[in-house]
């Protein structure tokens, strides 16, 4: 019975990874600004999920909601931990084997600067919508808020960003 349970859980995690991993990776990537960190965080989230299911006596009603809540918390923790870390380059020469992430880095900085001008709860709805590719109903479930609140946070956040964009242009 225990063996069946383990295989059943592994099967559920495998299906979740196939369905959600790419979206989770993109969400984490635009949250952390680094694909390597994003992959680590997403992997940790799946490991935690497995450990929790394998530990037994814990029932997770909505796996997707649990995954994104854990992912959001893991991203916040990662950002908090890295805030005090100063990366010192060995030399100033660019790494020849490093992937071409210039476009992404510029995009990340621009998007992050826009999302920083709005309250975090509104930014989180926008992130889940655009980078997690979640519907407003799914966002409401993940954030444990009413559907109307999710929609209004999205709308208010977008309006503020629009105004911020206009203000920066006028300056």
């Amino acid at each position, binding site marked *: 019975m225990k063996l069946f349970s383990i295989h059943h859980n592994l099967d559920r995690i495998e299906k979740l990874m196939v369905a959600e991993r*790419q979206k989770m*990776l*993109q969400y984490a*990537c*635009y949250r952390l600004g680094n*694909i390597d960190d*994003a992959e680590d965080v997403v992997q940790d989230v799946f490991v935690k999920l497995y450990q929790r299911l394998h530990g037994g006596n814990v029932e997770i009603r909505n796996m997707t909601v649990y995954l994104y809540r854990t992912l959001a918390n893991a991203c916040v923790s990662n950002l908090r931990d890295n805030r005090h870390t100063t990366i010192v380059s060995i030399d100033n020469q660019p790494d020849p084997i490093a*992937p071409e*992430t210039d*476009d*992404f880095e*510029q*995009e990340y900085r*621009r*998007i992050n600067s*826009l*999302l920083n001008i709005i309250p975090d709860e509104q930014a989180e709805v*926008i992130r889940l*919508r*655009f*980078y997690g*590719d*979640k*519907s*407003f109903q*799914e966002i409401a479930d993940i954030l444990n808020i009413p559907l109307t609140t999710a*929609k*209004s946070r*999205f*709308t208010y956040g*977008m*309006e503020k*960003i*629009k105004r911020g*964009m206009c203000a920066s242009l006028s300056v």
Partner: protein
Amino acid sequence: MADLFDKNVDPQIKAECEEHISQCTECREYYEDLFTTAEVLRPKHSPVNKNNALLSTEESLQSKNFQFRKIAAIFVGVMLLSGIALAAIQVIRFVNNPEVFSPSPSKDMQLVYHHSMPTDTLDTDTIPTEVVRYNEATLEQILTDMAGYYTLRLNWQNNEAKTVRLFYVWDKSQTVIESVEMLNMFERIHLELTDSVLTVDLQTNKSHQ
């Protein structure tokens, strides 16, 4: 308005909003502003997509490689099985009829060889054209040969006839009558064929006269 930016927009709500936007300038401008902002925020250079594209390329290459290997393995397998089947057939044939595979040719095989020869390649003539030349041979010797050949019995009326010597060419293709007539052309020799008995007589000068 937020419904227009949802993942799965209800078609009815979308149609109603679009209809209203087309008529209401204020709402249209508001939607366009939100749409522009959304376009700014949407990911366009996501490294996740690049990584997945690389992975999918590698996977497709691996799958092509795997398919080629699979086809090659099937081909080799078919060749191997057909070879084993042919070998098994040969072994079964050998067990059932080992003589066919023996290195020394048997009599049957030789017969088959001779039967298979075309008739125009026979090295011997089917019609005997043997000619016997007698050079001063006795009549007894000549007629004994003829009697043996034509299955005749000789009846010598005169013993002196046995010692008569002749130069004679006997063509075996001739009939017995033709041969007897040829010999009767010699002087003094008188042959008479009755049934299968050849009577030989030697005519004296007196009787000849």
